[in-house]
């Protein structure tokens, strides 16, 4: 198993898929290193939030994902 990365909104377009997997364990720098240039740059935008297994992280730097975890990358929202 690995860490499942879920891309939302325009990040899914940049990733070319709504999900992919990266090797565990995974921290914030490891996540960025695992993504290609334009996508890594978009993900590193301060407005992108992270959720691990459905719980929002207060700070991306505290990311510490293990095997089987789901990490969602959440760009600015727009509903209604």
């Amino acid at each position, binding site marked *: 198993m690995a860490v499942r990365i879920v891309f939302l909104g*325009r990040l*899914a*377009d940049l990733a070319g898929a709504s999900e992919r997997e990266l090797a565990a364990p995974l921290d914030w720098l490891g996540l960025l290193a695992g993504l290609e240039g334009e996508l890594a740059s978009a993900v590193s935008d301060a407005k992108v939030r992270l*959720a691990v297994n*459905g719980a929002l992280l207060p700070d991306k730097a505290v990311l510490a994902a293990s095997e089987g975890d789901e990490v*969602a990358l959440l760009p600015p*929202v727009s*509903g209604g």
Partner: protein
Amino acid sequence: MKQVSLLEQAFSPGEVIERFTASHPDAGGIVSFTGQVRASDGCEALELSHYAPLTLPGMDALAEEALSRWALEGVMVLHRSGTMLPGETIVLVAAAARHRRDAFLAADFLMDHLKSDAWFWKREKRDDRWHWIEPRETDYSDLARWK
């Protein structure tokens, strides 16, 4: 009464408002907001994606906050996801209260939060191409009114 749903299929706002109204006989006033895909605007389709672990729990927490901030008899928050065509309803909120000001404020509050503080991502198809939609500046300033 609280009704919060994420819907995959088109629905008829009048029928839903009628049921909501009838189920709150003690409310003197019911305010509803219906948001729909505009017919003229060059928008061929609208797509709303969401993130299941966050979206519905977030809508539910929002409805609870409205219930705690105003004296309401009931509140309803319905939001579509998936692909919508012009004329289809995107969102429907309603608030029932003894006094109308509570109902107006609650519906206004719910919409401001759904627009720019709920877990949805919206894109529009124009000229056969998809474009991601970000909230307008006024959506953020509208949201700031409730802090």
